């Protein structure tokens, strides 16, 4: 991990070699480690360290990029010359935007020393803490933990300079009963590994595995559901909430190929498209989901509201499209935060007369981009609720549903929790569409 000053020294040296109209340098690196287990034993584990520097040189509207992971003066200068060579031969990009000058960034620090210090022994112990309770209860665990500690620094010949360092740990575990009739899931992602207990997450999955055995079949149809945060955002798959947020790009909407396109042209900015309790924003300074203070092209990440009380308030723009439309070039957020209520998941269940509790949704794929219709299935813990109590496990369903329709059929929201680097509340939704049954456990 290079410090801000070390990175800047290298970047400034590389910038001094530039003979092009504009040049930017991106220097990044760090360490990643992982451990994977299945059938109650470790299967693979690894760690790697990498650092690389990438140079983009520009002549007019022609850009060329070259990268290197050796940092002696001769190699760095050679890389600059190579980027210039590639740029001269590149086709013109009519949408090329001149590089940004100096920017002012918020103070964010999504970094924890505890995570940066993780080693093979730490991972091995964390895995043991997950495996041991499962072995003792004759349950079968499969899990994965990945930790990252990285830095990213950019600089350009227009004077822009930015540095970010961040750490993250993602952990997930699937616990199955020995007879394969029950399956449960737990997941957690943190910036600071001292806030992660693999044992506690595993115990949630164990409880769901035991409670989900011998599921009963309910007829497919429209049901009131409680979607846990892992059913709304996934660390490892597409998901309904991320699909919604990622589909808000202004250019696609202006071009007429988005759910935010308006009949006859233009976008649906300013329209109320969701229940009035839906408010979603990005904020890199939120202490629970801290994020880098700049986007990949150097634009500042600031607090910005995408949906406020059900109304579309802002849409992300590329710099090119923003200039064309004469608006501020708001970058896509690095995280998102959905406002919720104060109820715990248990309280939400208690307040439900009839419904289905969904732990997780899986293999989520777009069916119709026009309506944001997605399909996928419930997985690893699906339960029938009656009169405020979980009555019995139910067989998994396939759903066909749009997050736009889902966020209009909102009944209640719980307390937001961190999932996939975002804050999302559990949601109670009426008329969620299940179209067929699955025998999968």
């Amino acid at each position, binding site marked *: 991990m290079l410090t801000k000053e070390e990175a800047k020294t290298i970047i400034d040296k590389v910038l001094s070699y530039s003979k092009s109209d504009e040049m930017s340098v991106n220097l990044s690196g760090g360490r990643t480690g992982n451990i*994977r287990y*299945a*059938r*109650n*034993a470790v*299967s*693979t584990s*690894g760690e*790697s360290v*990498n650092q*690389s520097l990438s140079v983009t040189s520009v002549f007019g509207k022609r850009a060329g990029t070259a*990268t290197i992971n050796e940092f002696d003066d001769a190699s760095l200068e050679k890389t600059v010359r*190579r980027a210039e060579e*590639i740029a001269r031969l590149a*086709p013109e990009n*009519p*949408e090329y935007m001149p590089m940004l000058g100096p920017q002012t960034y918020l103070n964010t620090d999504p970094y924890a020393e505890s995570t940066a210090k993780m080693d093979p022994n730490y991972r*091995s112990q964390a895995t043991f803490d997950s*495996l041991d309770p499962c072995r003792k209860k004759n349950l079968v665990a*499969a899990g994965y933990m*990945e930790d990252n500690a990285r830095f990213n620094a950019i600089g350009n010949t227009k004077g822009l300079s930015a540095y970010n360092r*961040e750490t993250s740990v993602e952990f997930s*575990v699937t616990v*199955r009963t020995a007879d*394969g009739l029950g*399956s449960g899931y737990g997941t957690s992602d943190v910036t600071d590994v001292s806030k992660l207990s693999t044992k506690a997450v595993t115990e949630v999955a164990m409880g769901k595995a035991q409670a989900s055995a011998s599921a009963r079949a309910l007829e497919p149809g429209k049901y009131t559901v409680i979607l846990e945060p892992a059913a709304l955002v996934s660390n*490892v798959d597409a998901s309904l909430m991320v699909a919604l947020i*990622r589909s808000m*790009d202004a250019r696609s909407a202006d071009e*007429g190929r988005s759910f935010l396109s*308006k009949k*006859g042209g233009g976008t649906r900015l300013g329209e109320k*498209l969701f229940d009035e309790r839906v408010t979603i924003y990005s904020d890199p300074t939120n202490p629970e989901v801290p994020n880098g203070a700049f986007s990949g092209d150097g634009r500042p990440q600031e607090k910005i509201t995408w949906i406020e009380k059900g109304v579309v308030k802002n849409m*992300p723009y590329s710099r090119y499209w923003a200039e064309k439309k004469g608006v501020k070039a708001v*970058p*896509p*957020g*690095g*995280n998102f935060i959905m406002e919720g209520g104060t109820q715990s998941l248990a309280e939400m269940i208690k307040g439900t007369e009839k419904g289905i509790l969904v732990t997780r949704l*899986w*293999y989520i*794929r777009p*069916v*119709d981009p*026009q*309506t944001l219709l997605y*399909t996928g*299935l419930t*997985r690893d813990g699906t339960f029938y609720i009656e009169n405020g109590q979980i009555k019995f496990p139910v067989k*998994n369903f*396939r759903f066909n549903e*749009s997050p736009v329709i889902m966020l209009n059929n909102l009944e209640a929201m719980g307390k937001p929790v961190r999932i*996939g680097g975002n804050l999302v509340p559990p949601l109670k939704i009426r008329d969620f569409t299940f*179209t*067929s*049954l*699955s*025998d*999968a*456990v």
Partner: protein
Amino acid sequence: MGLGTAGIVLPSLPAFSRTVSPEQLLEPGLDVAIKKRLADAAMNAAKSKGATYTDVRIGRYLNQYVITREDKVQNIVNTESYGVGVRVIADGCWGFAAVVDAKSEAETAKAAETAVAIARANAKLMKEPVQLAPQKGFGEVSWKAPIKRNAFEVPIKEKVDLLLGVNDAALKNGANFVNSVLFMVNEQKYFASTDGTYADQDIHRIWPIFDVTAIDPKTGKFETRNALSAPMGMGYEYLQSNPADKVTGITTRYNKGYDMLEDVTAAAKQARAKHKAKSVEAGKYDLVLDPSHLWLTIHESVGHPLELDRVLGYEANFAGTSFATLDKWKSKDFNYGSKQVNLIADKTQVGSLGAVGYDDEGVKTQKWDLVRNGTLVNYQAIRDQAHIINEDHSQGCCYADSWSSVQFQRMANVSLEAGKTPLSVANMIKDVKKGIYIIGDGSFSIDQQRYNFQFGGQLFYEIKDGQIVGMLKDVAYQSNTQEFWNSCVQVCDASDYRLGGSFFDGKGQPPQSSAVSHGSSTTRFNGVNVINTARKI
């Protein structure tokens, strides 16, 4: 974490890829004698630290992507990734370590020592030691994909001209927007193991794709149509149009030569025509599935559930397990499909994405039955699993997507054998009373044990009383794997056999990408449940 930054959604490049110039993609890699020295150094170092088995993969992975939209080149990406991965067994446990840009024996030896240390640290978490199926050494061998024209030797300008020509044809024929991309890959892989194999291999893959969008300003709706190309284990010759490789019919489809210009012209018109297509009435239909569509159904409902690692539970936390459990296989009468259904795994098929000479643990590739006359007969396995299915050898399904990734079990090419009785598509359709003819792959989703699936497509044609009567839209079919393959009633003959495939099939944690082909002839399935996917928001 979080949403990350937006941008062009591109598949991930091999780890540690660096940007290079197009010319560097043509430079030779390390000499094979040097690679042997690097491998021997690692194997000796591991052995001296107590490893009982070691394999070394020295990989140079070259990628070129040319990306355009309408009249613009958006990006040209040339990357190279080089490094060495060492895998060992020590104290009965696997250990793996990799080193970027390693060109000295000291570096590969150090990686081997790290791999042994990791194996030892994790050995205490094992329940039983790793058991490897025996494998004889092949000595110093090599394998090269039989390509006719190395795509990296084709000037960038020729590729850009092709794609901009494709985009122009789309816009002239009714599209409002078009994106087109050429993906080209060359894997130069060297494998060495303590079994005595030193295999040098050269693998090429290519995939031309586009998507066109047609907007109807009156309704505010948009329709799309994607390319009917297949990713292939071929060189640039795949883009040489050849009348013998065209399959004519309601729309032209392609075998081993793809006419991108012709396909995009049809696509623009068809995207426009979709606006006027009839929205499907939900219900049961007989489905006639073109190979450009059926490959994906085979991939999801046959290829994945018959991967032995899934069956055993190694993928339980991510991709999932499988309904095709060992007891079903042991019974020797598990009815996977109807008698017409013969599904083959094949790592040797010429022009396919999965074809290699040796897999990533030194096993010579082969071809074997998975389902014969409808009955489940085998799985896809690697060396540390073979004993579990009473095999004394691996079937050669081991693969890593980079020198920096640890190799594990990946899907072979899995294909539906062509029908033995002569049967054309036209004759198949003639007998269908109420059906849908589906061409091209679309939306796809299947559960974690591979029972329940839902598939869309690119083009849907309504069949009534043996005739195609018009285009349909909003079509998706839902079924259950066993029920679906048992509803298979007819498979067209070998003259209609074509490959489809996935260039970027994801599996594992951390995720790895693999390329795999699936062949079939047009096939009929009776009485499949079709849903209507239109919604109002």
